[in-house]
C-alpha cells in the first residue's frame, strides 16, 4: 500500500510544461530518490505534493496507516503540513531573524492549540503544552547535533548548518513523509557524507518515509531504496539504484553525460 500516490500529474506555466503526466508511488518507510537532469521537474513534483503548486491535471493521494486517504491536490499547503508532510527547500527557507530554537518551535505549529484569546488565558495548560513541545524540539536538536547552535540567530549560521537546521525544523513537525529538495547542494564532501548519514537515520531510526532530490548521484544511489528518474516532466525509469544505473534510457538522459565528463 503506497503512503503517497501521484497519478497523471500535469503542470504548466503558460507555455512551459513542467510535468507531463507524471506519476509515481511512494511506499511506507522507504527512502525514495527522485533524480533527473536540470529542469526535469523534480522540484515541481515536491511543490505539487506540498501544495505550493497546483497541478492542472492529476491526483495526489496520501493514505494514512488507518486507511484514511486524503486528496492532497485539493488541499491548502497548511492542511497538507498538518497531515504530516514536511519539507525542505532547494534555496533554504528559514526564519532568518529567529534563533535555531525558535525555528524548530515553529515546526511544532501544527501540533499547537490555542486561538487568539485562549492562548493568553489558559496559562497553565498552555505552559504544559509548551514544555511538551520544547522537549520534543530538544530531542530533535540532540538528534541533529545542533546543541552548540541552539540560540544562534539562523541568518548568521554557515550554509551547511542552515541546511541542518532546515531539516531539523522539518523533523520537529514529526512528519510521516519528509520531502528533501537537494539537501546536500553546496556542501563539501564531508558535509555531504554526514547529511547522508542523517537522512538514513531519519528513515531507519525515526521511521519516516523520505523522498529526496539530489544532484549528487553517488551519494543518493548509496542510500536510497528506490530511484525514480524524471526527464522533461515524465518518469523515464524507476527501480533499485543498480537497475536504474544500467537503464539505457537513464544513461541517455542523464548518467551518460556525467560518465563522459567523469
Amino acid at each position, binding site marked *: 500500500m503506497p503512503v503517497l500516490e501521484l497519478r497523471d500529474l500535469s503542470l504548466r506555466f503558460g507555455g512551459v510544461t513542467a510535468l507531463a503526466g507524471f506519476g509515481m508511488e511512494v511506499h511506507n518507510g522507504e527512502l525514495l530518490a527522485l533524480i533527473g537532469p536540470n529542469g526535469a521537474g523534480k522540484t515541481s513534483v515536491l511543490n505539487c505534493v506540498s501544495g*505550493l503548486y497546483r497541478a492542472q491535471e492529476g491526483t495526489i493521494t496520501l493514505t494514512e496507516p488507518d486507511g484514511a486517504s486524503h486528496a492532497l491536490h485539493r488541499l491548502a499547503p497548511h492542511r497538507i*503540513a498538518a497531515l504530516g508532510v514536511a519539507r525542505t*527547500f532547494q534555496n533554504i527557507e*528559514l*526564519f532568518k*531573524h529567529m534563533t535555531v530554537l525558535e525555528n524548530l*518551535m515553529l515546526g511544532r505549529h*501544527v501540533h499547537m492549540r490555542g486561538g*487568539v484569546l485562549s492562548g*493568553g488565558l489558559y496559562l497553565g495548560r498552555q505552559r504544559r503544552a509548551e514544555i511538551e513541545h520544547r522537549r520534543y524540539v530538544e530531542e530533535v536538536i540532540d538528534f541533529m547535533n545542533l546543541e552548540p547552535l541552539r540560540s544562534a540567530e539562523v541568518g548568521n549560521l554557515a550554509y551547511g548548518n542552515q541546511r541542518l537546521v532546515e531539516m531539523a525544523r522539518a523533523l520537529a513537525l514529526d512528519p510521516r513523509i519528509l520531502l528533501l529538495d537537494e539537501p546536500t547542494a553546496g556542501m563539501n564532501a564531508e558535509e555531504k557524507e554526514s547529511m547522508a548519514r542523517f537522512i538514513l537515520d531519519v528513515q531507519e531510526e525515526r521511521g519516516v518515509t523520505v523522498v529526496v532530490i539530489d544532484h549528487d548521484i553517488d551519494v543518493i544511489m548509496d542510500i536510497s531504496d528506490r530511484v525514480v528518474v524524471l526527464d522533461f516532466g515524465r518518469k523515464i525509469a524507476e527501480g533499485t539504484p543498480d537497475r536504474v544505473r544500467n537503464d539505457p534510457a537513464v544513461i541517455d538522459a542523464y548518467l551518460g553525460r556525467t560518465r563522459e565528463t567523469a
Partner: protein
Amino acid sequence: MDVFLQLTVSGLSTGMVYALAAAGFVVIYKASDVINFSQGDLLLFGTYLIFFAVAQTGLPWSLGVVVTVLLAVALALVIERLVLRPLIGEPIISMIMVTIGLSSILRAAVNAIWGPAPRSFESFLPAGDVALGPVILSSGRLLSIPIALAVLAALWLFFRHTRDGIAMRAIADDQQAALSMGISIPRVFGIAWGLAAASAAIGGIMLGNIVGVSPNVASIGLRVFPVVILGGLDSIRGAVIGGAVIGLLEVYTGGYVGHGLSLVVPYVVLVLVLMVRPYGLFGKEIIERV
C-alpha cells in the same frame, strides 16, 4: 512649567492614539508586508461607531466600547475576506493599491451614514480636571495614556507568546517556509486585520473623547505614516515610541512656536528619518543583496 506639563500630557495622549493606529498598521505590515493606507479610516470608523453605539443607540459606555470594538473587528474581517484574501499570492503592490481604494470607500461610507457635520456626545472619560500640585491637567487625557499603553502591551505580548502571534512573525520572515510548517495564511491575515481594526477602534474611541467626532479624524489617521516611519514599520515598540515622539513634537511646536508649524512637523520628521535611518528606530534592518 505648568504649560510644559500640560503640553506634555496632551502630547502623550494624542501620541498614544497615534500609537494605537500605528500598531494596527504594524500588525498588518508584519503579517503580510502590506502597507495599509486605510488604517486612518479604520480609526475614523471607530470614532463614529462609538458615537453610534453610545449617542445614537443609547448603550452605556462599557457596553458601547465592547460593541464598537466587535463591530470594527467584524468590518475588518469582512474587508479581509472579500477584498484582500482573493489577492493573496498576487503582487504586494496590488494589495497596497486596494487599501488606497478601501480608504476612499470607508471615508465615503462614514460620510453617507453619518453626514459631514461634526457630532458631539458626552465624553466617557471623566471630564473633570486633576490638580497635580500647581498644574491642572485634563483627567480624560491623562487616563487615555495608561489605557492605550495596556492595549499596546497586550499586542506586544500577543506577538511574543501566542501561537498565532509567532506564526505571524514567521510569515513575515519567510512565507514559503511558514506554509510548509502548516501555518494558515488566510487565518493569520484575518487575525491581523481583526487586531488592526480593534486597536484602531480603541484609538478611535479615545479620539472621540479627546477631540470629538468629525470627518477630520481621518486626517489624524494620516499621522500613522510619520509614526511608523520613525518607529519602524514592523515594530510595536516603535509604534509606541514613535507615537509619543510625534505627539509631543506636535504639541510642543504648537504651544511654543505656532499652530501652523505643528501640522507640518510630523512630516518633516518623516523626511528626516527616511534620509538618515530608513528602517526606523526599531525596524528590522533589511539588507537586499542584488
